[in-house]
């Protein structure tokens, strides 16, 4: 269950990054790298709670 919450937070993290960029709080280069990290994290976590039934 904890992994699932971390996964949801990861997706929200990815979504908030360009919002921060639009708000001027994050450079676009920073956004790109953080987004890649978030994406990798998502694909590491997702198989734990999205099962192949």
């Amino acid at each position, binding site marked *: 269950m904890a992994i699932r919450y971390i996964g949801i937070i990861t997706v929200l993290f990815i979504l908030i990054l360009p919002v921060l960029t*639009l708000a001027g709080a994050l450079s676009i280069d920073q956004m790109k790298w953080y*987004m*890649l990290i978030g994406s990798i994290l998502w*694909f590491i976590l997702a198989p734990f709670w999205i099962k192949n039934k």
Partner: protein
Amino acid sequence: MQSEISVEAPEVAQGEFEREPIPASKQKDWKSFLGMYAGEHAAGTEFMIGPLFLAAGASLYDLLIGLFIGNVLALLTWRYIVAPIAVSKKLTLYFHLEKIAGDKLVKVYNIVNGILFCFLAGAMVTVSASAVGVPFNIVFDVPESIFGFSTFGFSMIVIVVGLVMTVVAAAGYNTVAWVSNMAAPWMIVVFAACGMAALYQMGVTSFDALVEGAFWDHAVSVVQAKSGKTDFGIGKIIIFAWLCNGAMHFGMADLSIMRFAKDTKAGWGPAIGMFLGHYMAWIAAAFLLAAQIHLINDTSANPGALAWGAIGWTGILVVIIAGWTTANPTIYRAGLAFQSLMPKAKSFVGVLVAGVIATIAGIFPNLSAKLLDFVGLYGTILGPMGAIIFVDHYFSKRFNFPNFFAEQKGISFNTTVLIAWVIPVLFGLYMILNQGVFAAYMVIPCWVASGILYITLMKIKKA
């Protein structure tokens, strides 16, 4: 009634029930379809379709309203045309059609259907390959000829990508659904991120600037200065958004997917796919092209390059995975079509054949460049068979002709179906290819004509 069909289904001989109703134990909750469709419709091809609206000169207002209406209509078509029949009969499109048209005619239809699906999947392979090529600086250029090659390096990437997609699709529906479900939430937020990053790159950092739409008007003017002015009003946008998946809903191709549904609520399954994939993603993709024009004055819509420009490596990943999760069910559907030609073969054989054809199609980039015309054309060609299924299901009793005619009469080639299918399609093709009618415009007229023609011919036959 549905559970009776399912419970009484005999022991299945093959893994994925190609020729049996889906048993109750294998039916899926409607939520399973949300992820499946979200993955399918938040696709790599959205990166190609979105920029079209900008290039064709659609206003931002028309785009926002037109796409909304068109997607609502598409969703209603799935829910009220496809889902009730899929849940009632729980058969693949091909087996369902065999009962009406006879196995020999279905083989003809299957070949047409499977090949068209393969070309669609091939376009998605091309899109994914375009992203794989970006880090290696391998150019994705579109040759003049339909069957012209791109660079050697790009063709090699297409082959590798296509084979990987084929192997995954051959593993079966559950694997396809799992991959789509896993990627869908991530993919959707990344599509949204693409749009927002593009807005930032154009300096559109306030709601007022977004509403004003000067960035959009500028991009439209640049594209049209290079490519010439075209007309793409709200009516055309609505029809395109509604019928770009005409073969799936009006054509009943999604019977093969929705037969796994427990109830007709599965018909709402495409909702997320429609409004995030065919709404938000198309708009975001259009913004990507607008940003590219703003930054480097480049009007070429190379999916991989567009996403790379906005969000870097994540953009490469999203184009690859979006293309992959769309190609998977398309190859799977085509595989089912070919499978019906060889019912004794293992279920993965049809999928492997479809995957190889899709990969070959993907090698020719101009096929994917013609995607917009192609989707309308395939809706026009395949849609009418859906009308025959529809009238057979709902009107056979009312008009007093036997449903599942071929099965009841023990015939293998129902010429009535052939006539009801081919005549409207030939008329539609004439209008599209000869008269220059926008392909998507012909889907519904051909569908209605086929339905009416089938009822009329069946009545005449009975008389």
